[in-house]
């Protein structure tokens, strides 16, 4: 390997620490909604025992997921190298993507309602391959926009044909 350096000693950049609290809120909202809707429906049809079970399971599942959020969020990382972008994530299945700048077709910067409330964005890279999986969530708006602009100009400079 030349100036690119080995994949082992890469300086990983991490998403904003706010991503973890955002994910926890998301998990909590989903768990509470499931508990309320399913529990309420079951209670209304008189199955109070089942209603209690569903509520407990939903809340317990939410609590466990929320505890794992911290570890899952910590697995996200990205690195801009000389010729390509590296993105890694995944707790159960650890994934690493290498996307050459020359292969980027377009870059999305999206922010859902919850993300907007936290001032975070998700940057996603697209290549001609549908399987390419290079998504970086939880960047601050400023970082996200900077990354997008840098990637776009790098992509243009290195563009190679299909």
């Amino acid at each position: 390997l030349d100036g690119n350096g080995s994949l082992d000693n890469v300086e990983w950049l991490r998403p904003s620490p706010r991503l973890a609290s955002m994910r926890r809120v998301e998990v909590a909202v989903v768990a509470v909604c499931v508990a309320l809707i399913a529990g309420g429906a079951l209670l209304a049809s008189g199955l109070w025992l089942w209603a209690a079970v569903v509520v407990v399971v939903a809340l317990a599942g939410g609590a466990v997921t929320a505890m794992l959020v911290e570890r899952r969020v910590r697995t996200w990382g990205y690195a801009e190298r000389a010729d390509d972008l590296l993105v890694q994530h995944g707790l159960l299945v650890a994934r690493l993507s290498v996307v050459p700048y020359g292969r980027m077709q377009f870059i999305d910067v999206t922010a859902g309602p919850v993300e907007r409330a936290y001032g975070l964005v998700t940057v996603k890279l697209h290549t001609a391959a549908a399987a390419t999986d290079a998504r970086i969530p939880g960047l601050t708006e400023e970082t996200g926009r900077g990354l997008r602009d840098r990637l776009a100009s790098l992509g243009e400079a290195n563009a190679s044909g299909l």
Partner: protein
Amino acid sequence: MTVAADELWHRLSPLSPVVRLGRGGLAIFVLVVPALVTGHSAVDWNLAAYGGLLVVGVAGSIVSWLVTRWRVHEGALQKEEGLVRRQSLRFPLSQIQAVDVLQPALARVFGLAELRLRMGASQSSGRLAYLPIAEALALRERLLARREATTEPVPAEPVPSRLLFRVSTPRLVASFVLDLGSLALLAISVVVVVFVGSGALAIWIIPAGVGIWRRINAEYNRTVTEVPGGLHIEGGFVSTTAETIPLGRVQAVRLTEPILWRPFGWCRLLVVLAGRQARDAEAGDTTGRSARALIPVGTAEEAAALVRHLLPDVPLERRRPPARARWKAPLSYPNLAWDTNDAVLVATGGRLARITSWVPLEKVQSLRRERGPVQRRLRLETIRVDVAGRGVRASLRDRDIVEGEQALGELVELCRRARRPAA
């Protein structure tokens, strides 16, 4: 017509509306005519409705023919269409991935053909439906020649076309029988006939039959010939298709050896191109997928010869995964291997069928590494090589972690060198 004549606006063949109406019109005709003959009064309203539909359809397709025109201008095929919503489409010749000539059954009756330009982008395709067949073939030649002129230098003198492969019909028929899918269907059918009765059979026999018919229709008499700058694929039973694939647009080559074909040494060879298209059911056209079968069924020698033609420099070695990968992938372990040189990567896998994929390194879009929970325990990892298109990739499955890391670094570097900057 000549190159100069292409610059003028042209209409499609006046018979186009007839073919365009195709089966829909025919079906209505079949419904209406008997009703007219018997003069049955109960169907009068239906009759009126069908008649109305037919009139609207005929008028619509005639108008659409009247307002459609095309020409080749400023290095692009231009097409204008639409009465209410006028549309002007432009297909740059330099971006053509392939040009197909399709002949649905009805078009064949009238000696017409559809010309289809396959572009790099996912959905857009230029369709000229329909032209007289001779004109369609000549226009395709001219378009491809001009595309070459804009992108790559034209070969000094045209190489005479050389036959590379022709599918044998008995083998094609046998290959449909020796198919796990059709055998399973047969088994289910027998069970159903025995326990339920033959009436229930119709529900899936018909769609299955249609599917098999489509494949036979598409793969019958498939021939591959060498033409300047690419390969020419032809074939078809009732409706015929012909297309030319520029060699430089091949994203991957895939060889499949289904377990039931193994005793006979048969295999199937596909090429993967960029760009995909909705399947054209009317023409029984399976070319719409991004993968095209060069060899629907053939021998290993035939496949090897074609692979050499497509990718002259393929790695011949095979690096096997460590023996402990058997625990992770018990079924596919015997098939797992990979290797690379500085031009082409090869990876094999598959559980029941052995699948070999060759990917030119200059076409690789991205690389991915995966470590699942079982793999971590066994110190294994999988490296995926993504190529343009959907679900197309070669996988270096279950490699030793040390080897995998080395391979990933090596591949990143080899792909970087293989990529050439866009013109």
